[in-house]
């Protein structure tokens, strides 16, 4: 078998990845964070996590859908070792180059500090050997684990996830537990888990994974198969609701801000989901409608806005703003939606830029304040009180209500006549048109609905922050909303919510930090890579909508049907008829 060549190849790819993370300064930056006191630093977790993963890949061998991979921990460890050694060799070569030449003039991160960290402080000749060996061992570990039985693998995975989770989200755990003696036991003084508390958490997680194995799935299945109105189903809903609301009661101010941010992105994601997920139109200027909503509200409500200054209340301004966004959507959509789908992406991107440039320009400064932005935007009057960013808790509830509303509307829309015509259009536009669907109208409807949702989010945003500047409406925002939708799952409402929670909550939004502040500098890099990765490996997203995922894997489904029929040639027509 050409196992060696395969192992070498994945090893070298891993080596490139390791060198790249080192070259962009990621390892160095992450190493400022201690995960397990005193030895496990976050940068090393990333650096050696790559060979571990590659060890698993090498042990699995070349992917072959027809065969289950052979699980043998010895052979796996050897394969992983080879891959890891190659990864380590390549990285060492890279570190050697960085050490030998002065490159900081062009590559600011390729500096002696990086060499020092990647060689584990041993300096060049010895440290390179250490790096190579460490990488080889990490690869062997990955391959070894791959060869173990399922319960062991599950236990290790659970244990490492929990330990890493406790270590990474130290701040959150601190906020929630608030029992100082206990915290002192878990965490070391200068950050990071205590070694033995890490072991305890890992052991506990392992035990739990063994104890409750399969039961959670059984529970999910029970809930899913339960009657629509039965108690167990409502119990599950109630539990999910409480689990969602729970953080609000226990978490501190920083996390509140974060949650508001996440809520905004859920709302925006739900809106974009109608455009991208349901209608299959790629809108890259989505932030422009968000800006229309925010600036519209600001100008209409703030006492300090320029020429146009009606000082309306938020509730009066809202319908005007939504109507404006709808008109903007019509203006952009009408000429473009009759063209090929991909033109829309660029035109909307251009539209987003036009809006931003216009908002910044001297020409419209009297209205929108230019670089100064609009200040003193009042909050939302609500039965005698005012909802604004000053009381984040209340604002979260308020936003959550609209998120739920948007989710419900999306849910109903997908199952309505319009939703069915969107689905038909996505699958085959010509056939859809032939069955009497006016595709242009259906597209326009999706586009305008998306625009309205975005402007609504913008309106809330303006009321929350109180002062808006153009830099909140960068192209990046559109792209990040797109990443949220794609990673969560196109066309899937829970998926979009999950995507927003994971990405915005953990990695951070366009201007805000997530729970892992270390990632702030690299989040856009990660978002780009995630987009590519998801498209290549899992285009349907993390929590896929059943229908969308079927469309995306049509080929494979046909292939499966063909194989089931015995794989005879000529059988595929009948299989096709079946699907």
């Amino acid at each position, binding site marked *: 078998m050409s196992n060696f060549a395969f192992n070498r190849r994945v090893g070298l790819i891993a080596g490139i990845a390791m060198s790249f993370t080192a070259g962009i300064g990621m390892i160095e930056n992450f190493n400022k964070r201690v995960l397990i006191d005193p030895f496990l630093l976050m940068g090393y977790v990333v650096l050696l996590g790559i060979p571990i993963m590659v060890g698993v890949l090498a042990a699995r061998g070349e992917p072959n859908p027809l065969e289950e991979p052979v699980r043998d921990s010895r052979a796996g460890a050897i394969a992983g070792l080879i891959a890891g050694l190659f990864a380590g060799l390549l990285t060492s070569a890279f570190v050697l180059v960085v050490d030998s030449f002065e490159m900081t003039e062009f590559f600011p991160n390729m500096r002696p500090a990086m060499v020092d960290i990647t060689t584990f402080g041993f300096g060049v000749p010895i440290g390179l050997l250490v790096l190579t060996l460490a990488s080889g061992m990490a690869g062997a570990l990955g391959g070894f684990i791959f060869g173990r039985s399922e319960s062991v693998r599950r236990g290790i995975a659970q244990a490492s996830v929990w330990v890493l989770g406790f270590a990474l989200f130290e701040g959150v755990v601190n906020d929630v537990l608030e029992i100082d003696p206990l915290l002192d036991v878990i965490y070391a003084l200068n950050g990071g888990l205590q070694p033995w508390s890490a072991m305890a958490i890992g052991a506990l997680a392992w035990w739990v994974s063994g104890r409750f194995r399969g039961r959670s799935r059984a529970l999910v299945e029970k809930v899913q198969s339960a009657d629509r109105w039965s108690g167990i189903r409502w119990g599950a809903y109630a539990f999910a609701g409480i689990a969602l609301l729970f953080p609000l009661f226990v978490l501190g101010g920083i996390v509140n801000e974060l949650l508001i941010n996440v809520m905004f992105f859920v709302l925006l994601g739900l809106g974009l989901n109608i455009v991208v997920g349901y209608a299959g139109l790629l809108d890259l200027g989505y932030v422009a409608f968000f800006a229309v909503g925010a600036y519209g509200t600001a100008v209409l409500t703030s006492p300090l806005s320029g020429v146009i200054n009606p000082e309306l209340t938020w509730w009066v301004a809202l319908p005007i703003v939504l109507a404006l966004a709808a008109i903007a959507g019509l203006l952009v959509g009408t000429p473009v939606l009759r063209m090929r789908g991909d033109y829309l992406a660029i035109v909307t991107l251009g539209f987003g830029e036009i809006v931003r440039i216009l908002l910044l320009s001297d020409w419209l400064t009297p209205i929108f304040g230019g670089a100064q932005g609009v200040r003193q935007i009042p909050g939302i009057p609500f039965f005698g009180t005012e909802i604004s960013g000053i009381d984040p808790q209340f604002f979260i509830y308020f936003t959550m209500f609209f998120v739920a509303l948007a989710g419900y509307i999306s849910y109903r829309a997908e199952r309505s006549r319009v939703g069915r015509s969107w689905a038909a259009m996505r699958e085959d536009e010509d056939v859809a048109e032939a069955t009497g669907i006016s595709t242009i109208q259906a597209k326009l409807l999706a586009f305008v609905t998306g625009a309205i949702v975005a402007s609504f989010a913008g309106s809330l945003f303006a009321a929350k922050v109180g002062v808006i500047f153009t830099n909140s409406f960068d192209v990046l925002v559109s792209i990040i909303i797109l990443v949220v939708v794609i990673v969560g799952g196109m066309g899937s409402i829970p998926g979009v919510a999950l995507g927003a929670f994971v990405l915005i909550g953990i990695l951070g939004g366009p201007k805000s930090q997530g729970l892992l502040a270390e990632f702030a500098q690299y989040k*856009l890099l990660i978002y780009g890579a995630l987009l590519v990765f998801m498209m290549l490996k899992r285009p349907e997203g993390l929590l896929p909508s059943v229908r969308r995922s079927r469309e995306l894997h049509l080929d494979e489904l046909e292939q499966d049907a063909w194989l089931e029929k015995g794989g005879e040639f000529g059988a595929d027509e009948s299989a096709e008829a079946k699907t």
Partner: protein
Amino acid sequence: MDGFLWFIRISALITIVVGITGSIQNLMAGEGLSAVQWRDLVISSTTTGLMYGLIALGYSMVYGVLGFINFAHGEVFMAGSMVGFIAATLLFENGFWDANPFASVLFVLVISMITSTTVAVLVERIAYKRLRNSPRLIPLITSIGVSFFLQYAFAGLFGVASQSYPPAPGALSEDVIIFGVPVQGTRVLVFVVAMVSMVGLWYFVTRTKSGRAMRAVAEDKEIAGLMGIDVDRTIVVTFAVGGAMAGVAGLLWALLFRVVDFQTGFLPGLKAFTAAVLGGIGNLPGAMLGGVLLGLFEGVGPLLVLDGLGIPAVSQLKDAVAFAALFLVLIFRPSGLLGERVGSEDRA
């Protein structure tokens, strides 16, 4: 729907006509730019446009062959100019840059062409190749991801600060007199290099075997494959040639504007796409023509149209005008100037 489209068309036309009349009145009144300033503006816009054209070629070729917009093409261009920056700076520090201006420009040109080609081909191999048969949204979203990944990978490697290219070597920074008009040397270089590349590309596409294969694949992938053309290889060649053109543009851009950073590729990339649509996407002379027209449009347009509407500080709106051009094209002639009819399968 059609009525609404006509409404948009007519309002766009009226705006333009009113703007131009206003500007002409301003000119009659002796306000605004002098004749010499207009001439210089046209020259500089044309050279900028030529660079858009060079980038647009890559969009157009990939579009012609694979039928999708390679969003990351702007970053391919950026990659060329960023790596070219290293070479240029090293040459400059050695004193070679000023001593042998043409040799060093040629050297840096080769470096940035190689870089851009490599990046373009790698992206195709790693990301796009596996998506040949997936629904059309998928490669498009992938290319957006690639674009952002490349941008921030370069930001990570090179840092986020702008890098300044060494000043153009002596002979290039002086003015050259052409037909009695002084033109900056770098702009002449841009013109010459763009023309040479264009002719080279034309020769490649029409006269060589690979070029013929490319046209055949653009016509129909399946049948081209049946005729014994290695479709995969041809697609790689397409990306490589498009990348090389972007590399040329990358160096020229850097020589002309002298500042590059990781976001250098974004706006020119977007505008180059506009240029490709303007000229008729898939049509190579059209891409070049579209580039020049777009350059003129964004250079002269704000002064000619917006100024007449009484809008202050029009030069701020340059980029907005360029994108508005895309709208206008799609409203009035979606197939582009030299493009063929928009067939049913193109409308998807």
